[in-house]
């Protein structure tokens, strides 16, 4: 990844950014998020199939540097999050320096090598392998074998279910939730300063890990992602209980596409779906 | 035994102290409990509104006046909001007493200075009455109390009693701008009034409680007046849940405020990590 390191060093040497959020490899060989503050630290940057994290989450979490932009290494799915944050007025395009990576897929299981079997499902339907919004574009596109979309299969199965069967499916899934809120914390679009689950006057969501508390948390989080989820699947990747959270957000994204021809985070100049109203909006699906 | 299950208490009286502070006078529903309940000045309890939750307050009444158990609370969150809606005769829960207490025995035979700001008078009031009810065992007593404005002063009905007591010097102050046209007390922030009153440090113990900003500026004044770090005592108001040294919320370093505190000397506070 010399190209990345060279660009990063150049960025620091010419004061184009104050920090660069990227990936590094630790001494155990794990690829993980890393923040470079100077050109020496830029040497540690890397990018590979194991660069799974959506680093855009840090854009709203980190304190804004006083002396320059935030540089960020971003794959296509991360770019969609950056675009979405710009669309939602959370960050300004001028405050970030985007080092985009042509992406050749990322792994599902971080402990194993990249292969067709070990590729995230999101890569199958990715439309931004070459990002569409950047200051630098690095890396070469290579062909790779797309994974099976096993999620689509499950979605079809769920759709064929009766409401009661679906309820039971989700009850057993949400029953596992331990409320660690990792799904929320890794989500680049969960940037509320105070999450609704933290509000106690009134207590909208019960904090207990019980059927009621778990349903209200997971469903309300899903609803808050309606037409907003950019499909990075980070919530599902980090869920310690393997709850298939993206089934809900992906489905809602599909509805947004079908009903409004809208996909969030694709174009920073497009008004957001949730933030705009048109009298010609399709209402047929509201029952 | 279920250590998390409170006893039931009934609200016997409600006093509106200030626009946002009330005092409840409580009695255990179980008469035996009411007669046997004992605590020491400085200890706290967990008060429940069932369906809303629990809240931590010091016991504001003195152990020498066991007729009622009193707590004063300021509207802050979910539970205090619910408490404000309660009426005389309503039932609450109470667990306690918890924590350590003011060193009453150590204070005997000494001068005592009480310094409080705002609702910080609640725990101090408990020990003030404790001391006043055993008046002969203590030497000179100085009480310095301040609030943002005249309407923010709590226990106004008792301050008068303190002022009238022989051998008790009581100074009441309000922040500049908080005075009324007929205000006869001092005007100024608590630390500067303490400096002005300049209580003697010799054979004296000072008990200080108030908002963090008041405490922060009062400690240096006390040091300047020659008080040793061990003779300055305060009580901490960390966020707590269980009160039993289990839930981990009130930890400062290896200290459990709910067990090792809430009463600490200035010296002890200096040894703790800066996390309160």
């Amino acid at each position, binding site marked *: 990844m010399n190209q990345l390191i060279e660009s990063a060093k150049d960025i620091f040497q010419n004061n184009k950014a104050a920090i660069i959020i990227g990936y590094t490899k*630790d*001494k*155990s*060989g*794990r690829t*993980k*998020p890393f*923040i470079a503050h100077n050109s020496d630290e830029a040497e540690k940057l890397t990018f590979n199939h194991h660069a799974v*994290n959506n680093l855009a*989450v840090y854009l709203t979490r*980190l304190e804004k540097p006083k002396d320059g932009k935030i540089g960020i290494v971003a794959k296509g799915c991360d770019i969609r999050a950056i675009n979405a944050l710009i669309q939602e007025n959370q960050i300004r395009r001028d405050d970030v320096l985007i080092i985009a990576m042509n992406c050749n897929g990322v792994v599902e299981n971080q402990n194993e090598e990249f292969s067709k079997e070990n590729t995230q499902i999101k890569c199958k339907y990715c439309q931004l392998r070459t990002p569409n919004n950047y200051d630098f574009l690095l890396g070469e596109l290579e062909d790779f074998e797309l994974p099976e979309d096993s999620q689509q299969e499950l979605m079809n199965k769920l759709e064929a279910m009766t409401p009661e069967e679906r309820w039971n499916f989700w009850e057993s899934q949400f029953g*596992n939730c*331990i*409320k*660690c*809120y*990792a799904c*929320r*914390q*890794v989500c680049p679009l969960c940037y509320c300063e105070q999450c609704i689950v933290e509000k106690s006057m009134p207590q909208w969501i019960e*904090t*207990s*890990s*019980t059927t009621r*508390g778990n349903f209200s948390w997971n469903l309300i989080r899903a609803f808050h992602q309606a037409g907003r989820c950019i499909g990075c699947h*980070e919530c599902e990747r*980090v869920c*310690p*209980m*393997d709850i298939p959270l993206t089934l809900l957000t992906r489905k809602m994204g599909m509805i947004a596409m079908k009903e409004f021809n809208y996909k969030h985070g694709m174009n920073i100049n497009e008004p957001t779906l949730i933030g705009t109203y048109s009298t010609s909006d399709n209402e047929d699906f509201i029952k | *035994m*279920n*250590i*998390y*299950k409170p006893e*039931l208490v009934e609200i016997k009286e409600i006093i509106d102290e200030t626009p946002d502070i009330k005092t409840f006078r409580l009695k255990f529903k179980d008469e035996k409990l009411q007669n046997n309940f004992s605590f020491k000045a400085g200890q706290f309890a967990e008060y429940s509104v*069932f*369906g809303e*939750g*629990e809240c931590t307050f010091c016991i504001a009444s003195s152990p020498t006046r066991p007729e009622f158990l009193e707590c004063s609370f300021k509207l*802050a*969150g979910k539970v205090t909001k619910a408490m404000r809606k309660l009426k005389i005769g309503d*039932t609450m*829960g109470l667990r306690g007493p918890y924590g350590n207490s003011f060193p009453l025995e150590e204070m005997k035979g000494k001068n005592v200075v009480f310094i409080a700001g705002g609702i910080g008078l609640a725990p101090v009031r408990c020990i003030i009455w404790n001391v006043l009810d055993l008046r002969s065992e203590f030497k000179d007593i100085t009480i310095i109390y301040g609030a943002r404005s005249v309407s923010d002063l709590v226990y106004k009905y008792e301050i008068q009693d303190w002022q009238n007591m022989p051998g008790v010097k009581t100074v009441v102050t309000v922040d500049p701008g908080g005075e009324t046209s007929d205000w006869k007390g001092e005007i100024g922030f608590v630390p500067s009034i303490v400096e002005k009153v300049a209580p003697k440090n010799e054979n004296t113990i000072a008990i200080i409680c108030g908002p963090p900003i008041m405490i922060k500026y009062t400690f240096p004044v006390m040091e300047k007046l020659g008080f040793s770090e061990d003779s300055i005592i305060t009580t901490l*108001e*960390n*966020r707590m*849940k*269980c009160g039993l*040294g*289990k*839930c*981990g*919320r009130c*930890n400062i*370093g*290896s200290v459990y405020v709910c067990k090792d505190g809430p009463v600490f000397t200035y010296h002890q506070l200096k040894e703790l*990590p800066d*996390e*309160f």
Partner: protein
Amino acid sequence: MKSFIVTRSQINSLAAELLSKNWSIFTQSEDRKRFKQCESESEISVDGNGKPSDVSFKELFFPKSETLFYFNRDNEELTLLDPAEPGTKTVIFGAKPCDAASVPVLSKVFNWDYNDEFFNKRVENTIVISIACSYSDESCFCTSVGLSPFSEIGSDLFLIPTEKDSFILKIVSEKGEKFINEFPFMIQKEFEGTFDLENQKASFPKEKFDFASVKEWLGKNFKDEIWNEVGELCLGCAQCAYVCPTCHCFDIVDENCGVSCGRRVKNWDSCQFGLFTKHASGHNPREDQSRRYRQRVNHKFNYYKQRFDEILCTGCGRCTRGCPVSIDIAQVLEKIQCKQSAAIV
């Protein structure tokens, strides 16, 4: 205490008999996510090779949500009702030594001064049958916190695999002895040899840091750059705390079940959440993630040791394996040890 030779089929028979007597049996789930309840003896897993479950077995002693009492308002009269005692007799099969060790560590905080009977009753009713561990990955560090793949601490009975489907069953606690005596077929063949632990040591995960040095440094250095380094990457979820066998912080909340009734619940909570220490006034003593991460490390490797003479960590590595941003706590502690070594020189 005595040891016996048992076979896998005897262990299965034990499980079958327990099930028939209405005991609850828990074992690691096949996907090694957590400990699951078994309905048949064929489900039990006694596998020393397997990865520790993603979530520890802590929830069997300290559930993620536990009712403390119910309240009921009937005709304006309020009554409080204790929940049913956790009465089910339980056996955990195939716990890891790094799971079992957490029980006595947790017992300290749940029993100093006030006794938490919710925790105690569950411990009392549970038999922990652990198995020597032959798994290790880059996240494991039990040997750095005074444990090992053969630690029997916290177990009632301990299995050491010898040959295929055969185990040495060591009786570790009096509770374990009393339990196993009820099942004579398990104690037919006494193991009279000696098990050579020294021989095994070569395969133990190597020590990653020296606990004493780490503790010493933590005791002396509250403010340090290292907390910012980790704090700026840590996203502040509680996955580390919730998968951890020893993290025990909790919240207490009320829940209404209707207009006139409800319950008070003890829920897992974590010092990694900003809300954990935030006062009603808005003041927060640990206002950023670096302070919260510092608290986590200090609580585990400094404060708890000072207070209860135990390390609040069994080196199971779950927090590292599960961390969304791959923060490796052992690497943080290694760095701290380096700082301490540098300070000595």
